[in-house]
Structure formats: structure tokens, C-alpha cells
């Protein structure tokens, strides 16, 4: 393995700049932060709690949650911890902070103070600074993670890790392509190299910080091979900077066979590439996201989607499930609705825990297909990068051999069109320039024709639209009426 690690000198140079981009950056003192992190007990360290669950075969549950003001945010998280029975907690960051618009976030905080309610869609951790973050993490009994969607999360990482958070979501692709419009891939990869190096620096000082690439991408009919390849790449890039605790994610597709196959394959294939890249010393866990696309507005139906997501996640053997709420289709949930989502999920998870459900049928066939798809995509990346995954990734997005459906980024080809087959598995209808072999595409085509015949209509864009709406309208597959 080559030495791709960001040098200390380079890192420090960037750090000086980054910490000056907002006044609270001055609060960060790395050595002091290391001491602070060292004092955090094991049962509040995200990496350790998650790894313990992994070894015990238990699936942990984690909500999303974040509001503008510290006091309200603490009240929210404490409620989710006690009443909601959350195993792990989040701090979801607002959309302005995600785009480094700290002035707008400051404005949002002020307006929220005035309105006596949160006008931001998350917690502006940078604005609240190291001190604000510590007040939050110290008020809680379980580990807390930063969840966001930030292409350039360098300052956020510095502040929040110094602030006592022990896990940090995101990655150079997964927090760019689905979340940004005009950020070049190389730029976000470079900025995330910094974040990973920062985590590596903590690891070198004996502090475990969990890192979690964002698996679901746009959350909308993403074929598993695409999100898996992104996860594997981000995993490699993170390991290169010294990350040790890595959680790869996958967003539920809805078909049980595909979801179970996907999560099992993710572990196997990721380990294969990590070893291939020369890594041995890491802890790999998985996270399963309950359905990330459009939700039904009716709350009873939302509970159904939440339950089925939990069931699929437990059956797939996920170490952690990210939980939705009955308010999903409508807006940021109240704390009560958020707790309901976790409680519902907890009940399902507890009903399934230990049942050891094994699928039969086409399990092996789908497993082999997915591995084949991933190797098609990865081979091309290695090829385009002359053996280097980072260079290959940038080239692959440019050439469209890696392509995320429905993404806003102008650096994403945006040509592939996914669609459900007759059993609801997500297949690829239009591959654009995706590096999938003809054999694979013929299989996809055949499965889609099967559906078209059943529905007595041609495979068409209308089917994609129907599939996008389907779950929110109460079904998995967007059938004609």
C-alpha cells in the first residue's frame, strides 16, 4: 500500500486556515481536545458501543434529530434517550452549516430565539462552538454522532470532535453528489481527506472515533451496486488516513431479498477490497437506513414503512438501523413523533432479534449478480486511475462510469435510470455510461421486460416516475392502476 496519508505539515497548514473561517474555530485546541476525549467513558464512545453490539449480534437503533438552540436540542435528545429508548443519538446539522453559510445559520439562531421555535432544520454546531457541543454531549448517557451532508466539513469536524462527539458521518462523494450542485469531486475528496486525517490523528492518540460514509446517497431507487462502490471507495480513502472504526451504510430498497443480499454482500465485498488495498487493522460495521425516499403522509402508513424497514434491517444483520418518524413526509418531527419512530422500531427489532431468519429462493443468484456488478464498476475505476482508487473515482464520475441517480451535482453524469422489476428489486433501465458489462445489463433488461409484460405497458420513463411515488402512495412497485 502506497502512503497516501496527508502529511502533518500539510494538515497543519490547512488547519490554520480552516479554524479561521469562523470565530468559534479559535476554541479548538487539539491537545486539550484529546485529553477531553480520553475522559469520555467507554459506554459513551460510539465506536466502542457499536463494535460491542456487532460482536453480540445486536442491532442498535438511532434516530435523526437536531434543532437550532442548545437548550431545545438537549431536551430533544434527552427525550429520545429516555422516552424514545434510542441506543445511539445523533446531532443533525442544519442545511446552512452544511454549506458553510455560518452567517445564515447565525441568523437562523436569532430568528429561532425570537420565534421561540426552531427555524433551522438542524443544529448549527459550528455556531455553537466547542463549548456548546460539550454542553450537549455531556448531557447525554449514550454516544452521539454528527449527521449532516456537508461537502466541506473540516471546521465542523474540528469543532464537534473537540466538542465530545465520537462519530462523524459523511464522505467525499456521499456528502457531495447528493447534497451539492457545484462542488468538484476532487475538491470534496480533498476536504474529506482532512476530516479522515483528523480522525486518524485522534486514533493515533488512542481515541476511537467512528466514521460512517453516507450509504443511501439520493435515497431514491439507488441500485445497491452504486452505493456499495461509493461506500467501498470512501472506506478505502478513510482507512488511508488512519481511520479504524468504519461503518458502511445502505439505504433500504424495499424488496427483502435485495436488501438482505445487499447488506451481506456489502460486508464481504468491502473486506475484500480493503484487504486488497493492504488494510487489516480496522473494525467494519454496517448501518441500514429505513426507506430514504418519499414517505406516505398518513401516519399509520408511515409506521408500516418504519416497521418493514426495521424488519429488513434486522433480517439483513445490520449492526445499526437509522430510524424514520411518522412525520417524515411532512416536516422535521416533533420530539414525540421522533420517539414514536424509535419505539416502533425497537418493538420490531426486539421481536426479530435472535430469530436467525435465512432466505432461500434466488438468494445466491442475486448475491453473485451484485458482486459481479460491483467488480465491473470497481475494475473500471482502477483502470481509469491506473491502479489508484482516488484518481480513478474522479475520472469515473467524469466519464459517467460511476453515476448516482437523481443527484443534483453537475459533476455527476446523471444519465442512469433505475426502475423496479416485477418483484420490486431495483434494476437499471438506462445505464448511461455506467461500467456494467453487457451480461449484467441483459439480466436487468430481462427482469424489467418481465414487469412490462405483466403490466402490459412498455418499459418507459413513466415507470420510473411511478416507482418514485409508489411507496408514498402505499405500494412498493409503481404499477398502472
Amino acid at each position, binding site marked *: 500500500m502506497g502512503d497516501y496519508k496527508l502529511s502533518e505539515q500539510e494538515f497543519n497548514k490547512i488547519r490554520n486556515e480552516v479554524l479561521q473561517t469562523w470565530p468559534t474555530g479559535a476554541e479548538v485546541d487539539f491537545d486539550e481536545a484529546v485529553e477531553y476525549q480520553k475522559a469520555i467513558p467507554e459506554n459513551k464512545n460510539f465506536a466502542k458501543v457499536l463494535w460491542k453490539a456487532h460482536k453480540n449480534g445486536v442491532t442498535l437503533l438511532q434516530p435523526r434529530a437536531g434543532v437550532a438552540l442548545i437548550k431545545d436540542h438537549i431536551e430533544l435528545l434527552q427525550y429520545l434517550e429516555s422516552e424514545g429508548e434510542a441506543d445511539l443519538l445523533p446531532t443533525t446539522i442544519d442545511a446552512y452549516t452544511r454549506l458553510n453559510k455560518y452567517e445564515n445559520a447565525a*441568523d437562523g439562531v436569532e430568528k429561532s430565539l425570537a420565534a421561540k421555535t426552531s427555524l433551522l432544520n438542524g443544529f448549527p454546531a459550528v455556531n455553537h462552538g466547542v463549548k456548546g457541543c460539550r454542553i450537549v454531549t455531556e448531557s447525554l448517557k449514550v454516544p452521539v454522532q454528527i449527521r449532516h451532508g456537508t461537502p466541506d466539513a473540516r471546521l465542523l469536524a474540528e469543532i464537534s470532535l473537540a466538542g465530545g462527539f465520537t462519530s462523524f458521518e459523511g464522505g467525499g462523494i456521499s456528502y457531495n453528489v447528493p447534497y451539492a450542485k457545484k462542488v468538484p469531486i476532487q475538491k470534496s475528496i480533498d476536504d474529506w481527506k482532512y476530516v479522515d486525517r483528523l480522525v486518524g490523528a485522534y486514533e493515533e492518540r488512542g481515541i476511537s472515533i467512528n466514521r460512517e460514509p453516507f450509504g443511501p446517497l439520493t435515497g431514491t431507487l439507488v441500485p445497491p451496486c452504486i452505493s456499495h462502490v461509493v461506500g467501498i471507495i470512501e472506506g478505502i480513502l478513510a482507512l488511508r488516513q488512519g481511520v479504524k472504526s468504519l461503518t458502511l451504510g445502505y439505504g433500504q430498497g424495499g424488496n427483502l431479498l435485495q436488501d438482505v443480499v445487499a447488506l451481506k454482500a456489502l460486508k464481504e465485498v468491502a473486506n475484500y477490497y480493503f484487504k486488497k488495498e493492504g488494510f487489516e487493522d480496522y473494525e467494519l460495521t454496517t448501518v441500514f437506513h429505513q426507506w430514504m425516499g418519499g414517505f406516505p403522509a398518513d401516519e399509520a402508513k408511515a409506521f408500516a414503512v418504519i416497521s418493514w424497514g426495521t424488519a429488513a434491517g434486522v433480517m439483513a444483520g445490520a449492526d445499526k438501523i437509522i430510524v424514520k418518524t411518522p*412525520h417524515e413526509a411532512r416536516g422535521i418531527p*416533533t420530539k414525540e413523533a421522533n420517539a414514536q419512530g424509535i419505539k416502533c422500531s425497537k418493538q420490531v427489532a426486539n421481536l426479530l432479534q435472535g430469530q436467525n431468519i435465512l432466505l432461500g429462493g434466488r438468494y445466491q443468484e442475486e448475491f453473485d449478480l451484485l458482486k459481479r456488478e460491483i467488480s465491473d464498476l470497481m475494475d473500471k475505476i482502477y483502470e481509469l486511475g491506473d491502479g489508484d482508487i482516488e484518481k480513478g473515482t474522479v475520472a469515473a464520475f467524469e466519464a459517467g462510469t460511476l453515476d448516482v441517480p437523481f443527484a443534483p451535482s453537475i459533476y455527476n453524469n446523471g444519465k442512469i435510470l433505475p426502475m423496479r422489476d416485477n418483484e420490486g428489486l431495483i434494476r437499471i433501465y438506462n445505464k448511461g455510461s455506467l461500467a456494467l458489462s453487457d451480461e449484467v445489463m441483459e439480466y436487468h433488461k430481462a427482469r424489467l421486460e418481465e414487469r412490462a409484460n405483466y403490466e402490459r405497458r412498455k418499459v418507459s420513463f413513466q415507470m420510473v416516475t411511478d416507482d418514485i411515488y409508489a411507496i408514498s402512495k402505499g405500494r412498493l412497485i409503481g404499477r398502472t392502476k
Partner: protein
Amino acid sequence: MSKPMTVVLGVIGSDCHSVGNTILNVFFTEQGFKVVNLGVMVSQEEYIAAAIETGAEAILVSSLYGHGEIDCAGLREKCIEQGLDDIILYVGGNLVVGKTDYSLVEEKFKKMGYNRVFSPEFPLEDMAELLRQDIRKRRQERENKD
């Protein structure tokens, strides 16, 4: 055949939700509108510039991510400043933070100067019909003025 109806489409502010925008783009085009789609993360200035450049008769603003209240305020005033006094402004999506009674949301955004306010479930066909009617009405009012 009458003059095609041109509309500017986009998701306002720092909002990255691109799926609905993709669908609306396809939908309005199929319905016979001339769609100028600005995609996601569109500033108020960008909407106005595109509307002036293309002579659009309506601006269709989406906001999904919860900051709609902050992002959408002032667009009507800016339009007026730029001479787009009577341009039709529609807004739709998850407009405020949190699950909120639709009538409260509507009131808020109508006060800001939006002609119509849509919840995510409003049937698109009906909305397109309203848009056609509103554009025709505007054309007539302009003719009457002349």
C-alpha cells in the same frame, strides 16, 4: 395555436432536494409548457434573471428542506423592483420546519406575495390547469391594460 407558456422552475435557497424537481421538469414539459429549469439551490436573483431573460409568465418555486420561510421571503418585492410586477409566483413543497396545518402555511406564503401555495400531495394535473388559467387571466389583464 397560442403562444407557448414559459415558466421558470427551481428549488430555492440551499436546498438540494432534486427528485421532485426532476419530476416537475418532465411533467410541465409533457403538459406543453416551456420549462426553464434552474435545478436545485437557486437564489432569488437567479429566478428573476431567468424570468427576465426568457420572458417567463410564472416562477415556480420549490422548497423542501424546511428553510422555506427564510428563503422565500422578499422574492415578490425583488420581482417588483425588477419590473416583474404581475408575474405569477407559485410555491410548493415542505415549506416550513415541522408538520404544520396547511392553512397556516398557505396564509404565511400568501402574505409574502405568492399567488398560490401547494402541499406536496396536491395533484399535479389540477395544478397545471390552475396555472394555465392564471396565465390566461394575466394575459387578458395585460391586454385590457393596453
